[in-house]
């Protein structure tokens, strides 16, 4: 769980005619607006450092123009950075030649796009096999693998349809099947669910989480939706104007926002549905077990809050999977957190 899969270091991206000279200005502390006004360059990303752990879901969140889509495109080098490095499995992506880069994209990564980016002249099956065709994998093998993933995302029976005949949600399932068929260890999802209706979006989020339980990919997930970020992310990075404001587990971002921007962002979130017992417990030190309530460490607050209200325990004892007591939570602290 703790191995670092993708390491992004001091990454800068400046759009414009002469990014190198603009880079010096940025490093000297010129900000985004000033850079645009005085030097006519756009600051895409500034000094991004991010370690993405293997087999986890890293969410990158920000509003439009925050640079989140630019950031994810640096991981498979669809965009060349102005400065910095991107290391995947110990290998610097930016030092690869064309051939190595293509191989890296073919075998290590797969990407899901906001507007699906399916090939309109190919059927669902052919679209799903696209990555394998690019790798020249033989037809029979490709066919079997593609059908398995089409089935897995719930599109059996649609293999011979064209994307235009499917709804948005179904098209994105094809996009997901195409990415999974590629069988890379890294899944890059660029606002993959943002174009979908809320209900379908929720469906897709559940499918992703369900698949992740089984597949343990390293997922980089871009979104502008905080609820989505909190639901999916093992960790969340918040970008604003190309600068990373905060990075951490969802509970930390909710409970201790570092900047005003993050604070504004998390203000209206229903904490009970995001924070787990283990996030807010304190160390045990001889708490009284009289009238205590026992809670699993991975339970969200809203799973035990009703019982707290009806049973009125003195305190809550947190247990881990092996039923060991690992911490406690006073009702006073609980109500503080919910009131914020």
């Amino acid at each position: 769980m703790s191995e670092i899969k993708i390491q992004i270091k001091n990454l800068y991206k400046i759009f414009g005619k002469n990014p190198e000279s603009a880079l010096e200005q940025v490093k000297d502390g010129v900000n985004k607006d000033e850079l645009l006004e005085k030097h006519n360059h756009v600051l895409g990303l500034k000094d991004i450092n991010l370690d993405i752990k293997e087999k986890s879901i890293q969410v990158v969140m920000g509003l439009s123009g925050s640079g989140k889509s630019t950031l994810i495109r640096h991981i498979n080098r669809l965009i060349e950075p102005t400065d910095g490095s991107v290391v995947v499995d110990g290998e610097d992506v930016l030092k690869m030649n064309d051939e190595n880069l293509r191989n890296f994209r073919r075998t290590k990564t797969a990407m899901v796009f906001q507007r699906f980016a399916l090939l309109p002249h190919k059927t669902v099956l052919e679209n799903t096999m696209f990555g394998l065709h690019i790798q020249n994998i033989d037809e029979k093998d490709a066919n079997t693998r593609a059908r398995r993933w089409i089935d897995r995302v719930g599109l059996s029976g649609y293999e011979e349809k064209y994307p235009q005949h499917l709804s948005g949600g179904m098209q994105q399932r094809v996009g997901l099947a195409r990415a999974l068929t590629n069988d890379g260890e890294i899944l890059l999802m660029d606002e993959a669910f943002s174009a979908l209706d809320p209900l379908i979006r929720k469906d897709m989020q559940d499918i992703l989480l369900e698949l992740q339980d089984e597949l343990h990919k390293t997922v980089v997930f871009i979104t502008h939706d905080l609820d989505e970020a909190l639901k999916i992310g093992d960790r969340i990075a918040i970008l604003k104007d190309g600068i990373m404001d905060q990075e951490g587990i969802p509970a930390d971002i909710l409970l201790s926002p570092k900047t005003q921007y993050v604070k504004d962002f998390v203000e209206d979130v229903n904490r009970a549905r995001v924070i787990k017992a283990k996030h807010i417990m304190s160390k045990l030190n001889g708490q009284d077990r009289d009238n205590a309530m026992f809670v699993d460490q991975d339970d969200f607050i809203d799973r035990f809050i009703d019982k707290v209200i009806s049973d009125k325990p003195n305190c809550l004892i947190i247990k881990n999977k092996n039923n060991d007591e690992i911490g406690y939570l006073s009702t006073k602290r609980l109500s503080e957190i919910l009131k914020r």
Partner: protein
Amino acid sequence: MEDFLSEFPELSRETLRFIKKGFDASYRAFSREYGDAIEAVFDPVLYFLVWFEKLLQNSPWPIVLICFLTVIYFGSRKISVTIGSLFAFLLIGIFGMWEDTMSTVSIIGVCTMLSIGIGIPVGVLMAKSERAQRICTPILDIMQTMPSFVYLIPVVMLLGIGKIPGLLAVVIYAIPPIIRLTNLGIREVDREVLEAADAFGANPRQKLFQVQLPLALPTIFAGINQTIMMALAMVVIASMIGVKGLGQPVLKAITNQYFAMGLFNGLAIVALAIIFDRVSQSFGHRIQQHRSGSRE
């Protein structure tokens, strides 16, 4: 001073004559030197053209007609177009224009194949490189606007009168649409789809053949249709430099004021144009059916 304003200051007559003469003389020398060699380059095309024309003219007409109708049916998948074509060809034959029509079909066929064979690669090149586009665009403008008689002069000087000069004239006139529309079609391919191809590690060749050309195909097909129409429009002019076919009787009719003769042959050209157009258009529609409706 008055003179200067009323008369545009021009080169003296002698100078002008000297320039034109020098230009013509050097071109004549060039054509004397290299004419045969250049002609030899076109020999294979000529052989093919002659073979194709003979094939159409010498095969029994019912067989040729059945072949045409089969191609028309499978191209258009429309009974109405096929039956209409049958009547058109029967009328053409009854009015004594079968041989000329076969000549015209053969030269249009070969010109279209040449235009596709040259035009699509050039269009691809233009789409891939801004520089190629900057160079090709003005050349295409010249090809489309320069009166065809003007470029017929050097072609005839170089290669004489005959099929090949006619073929060149037709191709020069008819090739710009397919080049332009191939270029446009490829440039119009959705950026996000191309990015997806990149993200999955497609190399430039895979991108071209699996993504760009298939997606540009409807536009390319519109170009092919235009190319065929323009080739047909050149038939009369090409007949002035010795290309056989429906153009020659038209030319004869103009010089001798034979109205009926001109009309019949003119209508035969129109009939061919309509058949080519309907077939290539419905074929074009069919290959992009995935864009609407289902394939069943």
